[in-house]
């Protein structure tokens, strides 16, 4: 029995919820999902739609609402939109859907935006579900160098540190009546870098005093375990993605139409 937080019962109940499956499993699944999503053709909009089940599942599990997801994705969508929208003008082939003749450009544009939605939603939901720290710890499963994992782990914490230092410098400058302009930016950025250096050294020494020896403490049994249910979980989703990529939708649609026609 794997123990965590001092209580195996607590850990087991969390694990059953699916919230505490091996984070590396979710990462691999999401990467595979991104690969499958990207492999669809330019006009695969309708064939890709069922793939939405995976991000929906993750969102339900992580408890992320549609509104929150929308506002997370909105600023990211501009670049994809800007590039994809050109298809409307350059893809002039005609297609008919429900008897209506449409420009293929609209369909290919919609496909790009759907790909963006699927890939981004799955990543955001995945990280909400697994947590960044757990993901970092379990990355050693995938063979990442320990130094890289340490760096990833510490970097995430340093972001707040940098923001706080920058805020202090800017506030001090404004209180003294100084302006913040491009010619003076060197006098702000330079001290910021040096202060960050100094602080990072202090943090590193403090970590060393507390027993840190360039290895992040990791409950190996907990993080590296991938039990039978995990394997079934991963295999089921993997099979679903592959089935969708290779004709599942058209088989179902033909089944339905055959029933209707005959």
């Amino acid at each position: 029995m794997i123990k965590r937080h001092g209580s195996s019962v607590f850990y087991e109940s969390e694990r059953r919820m699916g919230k505490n499956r091996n984070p590396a499993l979710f990462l691999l699944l999401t990467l595979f999902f991104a690969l499958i999503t990207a492999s669809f053709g330019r006009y695969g909009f309708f064939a890709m739609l069922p793939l939405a089940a995976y991000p929906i599942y993750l969102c339900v599990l992580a408890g992320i609402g549609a509104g929150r997801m929308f506002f997370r994705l909105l600023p990211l969508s501009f670049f994809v939109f800007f590039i994809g929208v050109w298809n409307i003008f350059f893809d002039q082939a005609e297609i008919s859907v429900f008897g209506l003749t449409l420009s293929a450009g609209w369909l290919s544009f919609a496909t790009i935006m759907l790909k963006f939605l699927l890939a981004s939603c799955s990543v955001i939901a995945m990280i909400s579900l697994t947590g960044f720290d757990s993901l970092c710890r379990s990355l050693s499963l995938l063979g990442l160098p320990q130094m890289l994992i340490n760096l990833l782990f510490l970097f995430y914490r340093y972001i707040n540190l940098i923001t706080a230092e920058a805020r202090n410098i800017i506030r001090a400058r404004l209180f003294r009546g100084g302006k913040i302009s491009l010619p003076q930016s060197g006098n702000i950025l330079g001290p910021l870098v040096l202060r960050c250096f100094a602080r990072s050294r202090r943090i590193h020494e403090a970590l060393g005093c507390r027993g840190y020896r360039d290895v992040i403490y990791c409950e190996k049994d907990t993080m590296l375990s991938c039990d039978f249910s995990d394997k079934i979980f991963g295999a089921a989703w993997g099979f679903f993605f592959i089935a969708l990529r290779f004709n599942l939708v058209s088989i179902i649609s033909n089944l339905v139409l055959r029933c209707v026609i005959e």
Partner: protein
Amino acid sequence: MHMADALVSPLIGGTFWIAGSYITVKAAQRIKEDREDARDVLMGVLAAFVFAGQMINFSIPGTGSSGHIGGGLLLAILLGRERAFLSMLIILSVQALVFADGGLLALGCNVFNLGFLPCYVAYPFIYKLLTASASKRSVFTAALLASVAALEMGAFFVVLQTCFSGITLIPFSLFTLLMLPIHFAIALVEGVCTALIVLYIYANEPMLLARPCEAVRPGNSLLRRTAALFVVATLLIGGLLSWHASSLPDGLEWALERVVTEGATPAAQDFSHSLSEIIQERTAFLPDYSLSVEEKDVGRLGTSVSGVVGSVITLLLASELAVFFGRRHSRR
């Protein structure tokens, strides 16, 4: 300038992933050999510094898009190219994982554009060559030129990766004309910022810029090896994808393939487009399933309806199952 998963094909994404992994392993090995612990301490915090800098977006007029600094060159100047590359990898991974900026599949492309090009091309071949005299003016000029070169190369590679992926139909020349001038402006800002920071550190703590280890090995055989790896990876992935080759298009483009009107001309058929299309079209696994409905029975309208109906039914089924299991688990 982050590539998104939506714009990358598996071939391009996979190739750059392999190349990125190779450079990462090599960089990690080299750092182990260096044993310059003082710089390892700085890696995390400097990466966070550049990350925070990337959060500051410049709006690009007329495009609805925005740009931000890359920071790869600054990291390379302060940390050396290997540590800078790994720091950029960390930054881009966090952006892809936590903020969904870029994407997992496109991570390899982003690492190449924003990490490899500034650290392994612009830094040794432009910055280091121009700063041989180490005067203030030469540092400023070198930082500016190297930043511009790195970002312009990165932007050009975004264009190449997008066009070779064949997802969009924006013409290569137009896309290049749009991307390069925009990134030239961003690169100027980045170049000035990089130069100012480097000059400040040069004046106050010049020891931070001294790197004895790199002077020992100026050779850059990694470039050649990476180029060779690209070719091998492309052939390998292309070969694997076309292994399941079939004479019929796979069942996923069926909705369009069958309903595109006879007379309609396919859009731009440049080399990259046709290459990716051939690979994508030749991945059918179950090309001739026994349940297919004869086209004469259903007709063109029916076929398009079948596509829509099939997708919606499968989505509903899958979503219902997903929501059901999700809620069931949550109740527990």
